[in-house]
């Protein structure tokens, strides 16, 4: 049985929490017809935006829109302060880990993380070894998925250190809320999120290899057929930078240029939304047509910066995740502010035995899986599914980790029958530049729209909400 969940509005039943007071009053006062009307407007608004979402690719056109829920998720200012400290600490540790992983691997020598978890990690890139990056920034843009279990405890569920997506939803959701419910924004002080593009641009400029010159930043996309293309073009527009495909760039004498109507223009910083594998056919997949031949030569020569760096996937591997508390202590000498979900590494025989014995209570995930695929939610699975999964687990134990079923917090959400609690998580975005760390207050709240479901991924029927950080 899943333990009783903490509700963002009502706590464990002790009544409305202060940060929700204004919203609750409004929800109680507003006539049902008004709410219903705004909901319909929101749907219309998003269907219209959705139409522009869909024009970008034949495949995208067939994709469902991600449902938007009009009841925001509210976090008190003091809660956010603690959370953002924890996020900053976490990302600092991720960057320190990556610098070490591609440097002397002290963490392996110290016996904290086993060598093979790093050297044989599919996302480890030997090509990155001994490379000095501007400001030692590997993960300039991190999306850290956190969940809440009570008033004081946030757990990190997953670190996204490669190409975290979803920030366009954070921005669009806020736009929609301001348009639909202007009166709510005048009632209380809600931290703005629309500074994100500026903060991102400043972060990208800060890691440029040429100092003291106007650096040229581009956003590299796999192209219109990629499912996240909308976000790529949205961000390029907001940042005011060129949205380029691999074929728009070329390398000459270890320098990256883009092809423009006025001739080659030197590129300093690439905000890459392409998987490492496809970046450079001379270094990685030789059959890639999305990349730039010779890009790694320019990168290794220090003539171009990539955000995120190549090979950051080692840090968002779920097996490495389980070592995060030790990693924070090892590099920063501090106790982790954010909790890690207790994790059994099935590669360890005792852990595997425990997991096999307790499959019914655990969530089992693939080490390199994402999007909610390839996982077993023990309490929700029937005996036959569990049996099948146990076989998979025994065949490749090193491919899995297991965690207890967490009672993710719930948040009031519009559903067919009215307003009901649904489980949520939160993906705040942490920007790390050579100058400083920037965290826009808020993030993307994802909500599992199916009653009782703990899977919030949009590919599995999740929706999104606006996230409000209140002023203190």
């Amino acid at each position: 049985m899943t333990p009783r969940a903490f509700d963002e509005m009502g706590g464990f039943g002790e009544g409305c929490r202060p940060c929700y007071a204004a919203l609750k009053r409004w929800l109680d006062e507003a006539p049902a017809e008004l709410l219903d009307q705004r909901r319909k407007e929101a749907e219309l608004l998003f269907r219209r935006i959705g139409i522009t979402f869909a024009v970008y690719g034949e495949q995208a056109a067939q994709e469902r829109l991600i449902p938007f829920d009009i009841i925001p998720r509210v976090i008190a200012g003091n809660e956010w302060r603690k959370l953002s400290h924890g996020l900053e600490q976490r990302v600092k540790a991720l960057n320190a880990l990556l610098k070490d992983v591609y440097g002397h691997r002290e963490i392996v020598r110290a016996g904290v993380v086993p060598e093979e978890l790093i050297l044989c990690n599919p996302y480890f890139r030997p090509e990155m070894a001994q490379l000095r990056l501007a400001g030692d920034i590997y993960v300039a843009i991190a999306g850290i998925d956190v969940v809440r279990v009570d008033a004081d405890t946030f757990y990190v569920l997953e670190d996204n250190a490669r190409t975290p997506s979803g920030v366009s939803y954070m921005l669009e959701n806020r736009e929609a809320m301001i348009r639909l419910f202007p009166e709510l924004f005048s009632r209380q002080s809600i931290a703005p999120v629309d500074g994100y593009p500026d903060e991102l641009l400043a972060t990208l400029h800060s890691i440029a290899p040429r100092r003291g010159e106007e650096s040229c930043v581009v956003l590299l996309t796999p192209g219109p057929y990629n499912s996240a293309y909308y976000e790529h073009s949205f961000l390029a527009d907001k940042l005011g930078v060129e949205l380029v495909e691999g074929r728009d760039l070329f390398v000459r004498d270890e320098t990256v240029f883009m092809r423009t109507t006025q001739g080659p223009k030197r590129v300093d910083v690439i905000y890459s939304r392409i998987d490492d594998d496809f970046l450079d056919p001379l270094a990685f997949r030789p059959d890639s047509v999305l990349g730039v031949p010779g890009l790694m030569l320019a990168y290794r020569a220090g003539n171009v910066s990539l955000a995120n760096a190549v090979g950051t996937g080692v840090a968002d591997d779920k097996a490495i995740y389980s070592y995060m508390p030790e990693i924070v202590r090892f590099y920063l000498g501090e106790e982790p502010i954010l909790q890690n979900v207790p994790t059994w590494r099935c590669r360890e025989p005792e852990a595997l035995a425990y997991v096999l014995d307790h499959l019914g209570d655990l969530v089992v995930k693939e080490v390199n899986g994402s999007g909610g695929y390839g996982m077993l939610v023990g309490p929700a699975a029937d005996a036959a599914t569990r049996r099948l999964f146990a076989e998979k687990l025994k065949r490749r134990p090193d491919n899995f980790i297991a965690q207890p079923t967490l009672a993710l917090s719930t948040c009031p959400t519009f559903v067919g029958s009215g307003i009901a609690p649904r489980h949520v998580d939160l993906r705040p975005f942490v920007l790390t530049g050579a100058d400083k760390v920037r965290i826009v207050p808020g993030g993307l709240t994802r909500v599992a729209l199916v009653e009782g479901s703990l899977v919030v991924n949009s590919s599995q029927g999740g929706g999104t909400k606006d996230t409000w950080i209140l002023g203190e």
Partner: protein
Amino acid sequence: MTLLSRTADNLFWMARYMERADSVARILDAAYRLSSLPTAYGGLTSEWDSAIATAGCTAAYAAAHEKVTPEAVVHFLAVSPENPSSIRRCLEIARANARAERTALTIEMWEAINDSYLTMQGWVDRGVSLADLPRFLAFAKEAALRFDGSAHRTMLRTDAFWFTCLGLCTERADNTARILDVKYHVLLPDHARVGGGLDYYQWASILRSVSALTSYRWVYRDSVKPWLVADLLILKEDMPRSLAACYRSINGYLDELSTAYGWQGNSQRLARSVHMRLGNTSIETIFQSGLHEFVESFLAQNNELGAAIAEQYLS
């Protein structure tokens, strides 16, 4: 200000394909009208044959069909997925180019292209019969008008706009020259029995395929004479589809680019030399040295200009 070569290339081809769709529609229109005349007026050659030739699809058609029938030609030029120059494929390719550069277009332009594309899908599902043809052609011509109009009314006058216009004019010059290339024999002097019913309809048909029947009367105040038809299509800068008018525009846009960028190259040199030669010749000189040869050489130069623009800016 930075414009990616790829973006400029997509805009250039988007405009070329919209223009080609329009041109194929006019060719079909002319053929349809000529074919609806009693055979005594239609001449010996099949108008449908020559429509295929004018659209530049002779080989592709022969590969797909054994016989030339009106129904087959209409299908081939209007909605066939196999013919890369069918109106349907032109609209699809134009839209694919536009979609790749969604952010470089204005909303109005995108909607003009996307709406035409969506309407086209309806025609694809229904098919275009001979009876439907006038309605279908009206739609196709309007699609081009709406695209042109939205581009001119809404785009910023920067390089993105100039590349769009360059695509349109280069394609338009090519289309006019190809009409002359296929029909030159009915314009030759030894063929000219002024007032002969048969040829009158051929000449009128040429004018119609470039929407210039009314303009002709207005410019020449005369009955339709073959050398004047050639004069109008080649040398009259007032006639927007004439070769001279296309090259006046092309030169204008290339000058805008060279001023904005601060350098010029082969495209500017080529375009100026073509425009100069058009300005310095007369229709008599052209007929003396051979209309056919003139048109062939123009088509080659126009291709060369396309390649020069691609080389200088688009790759």
